[in-house]
């Protein structure tokens, strides 16, 4: 009875739908941007195994609130929309599509995770919507040739590996290096960076021992590494394993120079369980000020951060590096948006993000600056070397660059 009618209706709707999709496909450069507002999306694991990271997004949101109270950026108020993906890539795809297609955000900012961001990278680039400052150290998020709409932020693992390589080449050119690394992209990125940094002297590496996250301990790896006769130990492990490794080295009576990747340079979570005595002399690197370090007590940037935390995120943990991280990455976004005021479009914002020259942030130590170019999508690549004195980290030497061109 109504079959022909409904069929006609379906055809009509179909035609309309295709027409609509055609319009939508010609990506609107100002989606999410009006004269008064800009919509910014974010995806974060509020639930699930990685939910501790959600402090970052809460800091981001608080920072946006502060910007709005101070008049917004380029005269526009920021509408910050953050969704939960539980650290599951399929959910990230769903939330990214919700942000882009339903909420119509101008960009997605600081979404967290390697797998999660990989899952949406192709989509974001197809939609020509910026995927700015992803919260992961994987080196693959700085590839402007294939993914011109995706940019990382923190020093990637490869760059950090190069930094240690440069330090060794300069200070211990005859070192024999033993490496403990986690057998995944994170560990392999570091190892690749170290090798690239050493260049034709990569033979300085005399032993490599991978471990799996499922291993109960890294004891046997440490015994093997000691047996290699190395005098430098490069520790590329997540906090639990890093602490085990430092402890085991001391138990074995092995006393190499120790390099510890920045992922695990927390005093409370790694050095304390490993033992302060055993940790003495360990070298690591950082790119953000430690909020607990007394040397920054009277620092202008640190004062601004403290005031911000007190007013806009009083529940936040001032001891946590996540709040320092969130503040700094948000400040970078603020500078990018300000640089795009004249051309406030998706590509204008992306252009501004790829054109940062020696930008100082409140919470980066002196000498560490944000630098990008049309071919360099790694904003932070410099790090300050630090040494543990048995009580806390002490900076030493000058800032080392992990960039390709020194």
């Amino acid at each position, binding site marked *: 009875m109504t079959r022909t009618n409904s069929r006609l209706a*379906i055809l009509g*709707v*179909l*035609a309309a*739908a*295709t027409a609509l*999709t055609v319009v*939508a496909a010609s990506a609107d450069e100002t989606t999410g941007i009006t004269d008064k507002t800009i919509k910014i999306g974010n995806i974060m694991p*509020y*639930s*699930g*195994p990685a*939910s501790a990271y*959600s402090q970052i997004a809460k800091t981001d949101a608080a920072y946006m609130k502060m910007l709005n109270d101070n008049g917004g950026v380029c005269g526009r108020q920021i509408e910050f929309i*953050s*969704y*939960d993906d*539980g*650290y*599951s*890539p*399929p*959910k990230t*795809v*769903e939330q990214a*599509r*919700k942000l*882009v*297609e*339903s909420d119509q955000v101008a960009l997605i900012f600081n979404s967290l*995770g*390697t*797998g*999660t961001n*990989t*899952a949406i*990278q*192709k*989509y974001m680039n197809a939609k020509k919507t910026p995927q700015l400052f992803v919260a992961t150290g994987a080196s*693959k998020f700085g590839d402007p040739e294939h993914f011109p709409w995706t940019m990382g932020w923190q020093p990637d693992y490869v760059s950090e590996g190069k930094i240690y390589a440069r330090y060794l080449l300069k200070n211990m050119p005859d070192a024999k290096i033993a490496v403990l690394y986690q*057998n*995944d*992209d*994170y560990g392999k990125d570091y190892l690749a960076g170290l090798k690239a940094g050493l260049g034709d002297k990569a033979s300085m590496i005399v032993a490599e021992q991978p471990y*799996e*996250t*499922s291993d109960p301990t890294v004891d046997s790896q440490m015994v093997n590494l000691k047996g290699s006769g190395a005098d430098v130990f490069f520790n590329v492990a997540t906090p639990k394993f890093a602490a085990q490794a430092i402890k085991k080295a001391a138990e074995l009576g092995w006393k190499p120079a120790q390099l510890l990747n920045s992922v695990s340079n927390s005093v409370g979570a790694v050095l304390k369980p490993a033992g302060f005595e055993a940790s003495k002399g360990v070298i690591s690197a950082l790119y953000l000020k430690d909020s607990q370090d007394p040397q920054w007590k009277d620092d202008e940037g640190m004062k601004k951060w403290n005031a911000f935390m007190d007013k806009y995120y009083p529940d936040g943990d001032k001891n946590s590096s996540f709040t320092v991280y969130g503040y700094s990455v948000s400040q970078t976004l603020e500078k990018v948006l300000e640089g795009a005021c004249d051309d406030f479009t998706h590509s204008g914002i992306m252009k501004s993000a790829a054109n940062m020259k020696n930008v100082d942030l409140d919470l980066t130590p002196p000498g560490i600056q944000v630098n990008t170019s049309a071919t360099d999508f790694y904003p932070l690549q410099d790090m300050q070397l630090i040494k543990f004195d048995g009580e806390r980290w002490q900076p030493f030497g000058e800032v080392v660059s992990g960039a390709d061109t020194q």
Partner: protein
Amino acid sequence: MSVREESSAITAAGKPVSRFGARNWAGIVVVLVLAALPLFLANFTIFQLTMMLIYAIAILGLNLLTGINGQFSLGHGAFYAIGAYTAAILMEDAGLAYGWTLPAAGIVCFLSGFLFGLPALRLEGIYLALATFGLAVAMPQFLKLSVIEPWTGGVQGIVITKPDAPFGLPLSQDQWLYYFTLVVGLLLYWFAVNLVSSRSGRALMAIRDNPLAARAMGVNNALYKSLAFGVSAAFTGIAGALGAIVVQFVAPDSFTFFLSVALFVGLVVGGVGWLPGALVGGAFVVFVPNVAEHFNKALAGAVYGVILILLIYLMPTGAGGLVRKVADFIGRRMKSRPDR
């Protein structure tokens, strides 16, 4: 569209019960609504609905195992992962068209499920649940193994290209994948319903109700239980393959233990043993976390838990039980009264 085979599927669905006609009509309405929905919705919502259908297929498979055959599994996320990886590897490495990856994923998962079912035969109830739980926990680690990394891509996973609608159909990619999933889902539903109402289906249910009696009647318990595991895994594997195609990405992080739990929750919410409940379960898996997040982001997990507890209190037998109760109630109202 595919209305024709759908309606026949529903006809087969009507088990010999008194309200045969009403059920039939309800099924047709549901299918018509499902077929019409994408015409009125944005692509993003269509994507969500596609995910709902995919989870529904996976839950349908789990329901065959748990609801019909009485075996527990907390590890179907593992079969979902195997299906997804089969599809991804075949598409990206072997260049196979996406449509062909579904039967391949089904066969691979049938074999894995069957083989897993063999040793699991000795296990009953919660012990089987524990063994399958182990499977689910091991799967993400297994996918990262360096031996198979050239194919699986290790932690990085595999990015898949999304297919366009064929034959120049005026459909967006999302609409096309929705209809593709819907047709696959209906075919599988039709297969499941026929299986349940067949001799084999009765054997499966006999094993569930009383294994000893089933054996006395000549049912080969071992074979049927393993087969149930295989078929169930095949359903879930096909769902996994569809999921990989729709999400365009597979990685070990996508298939954690939480996926298995989500499928199990979907099964219970939809109603154990009631096949159409899979759709309700699929909707629960996709939409309830969003609802929970909408209430309070920081407490999303807690809100989700509260919703789940409330649901189990209000409809302890899942959506299936609720539908049955409502149907009974209406039935009693319409009939005069006396019988009961």
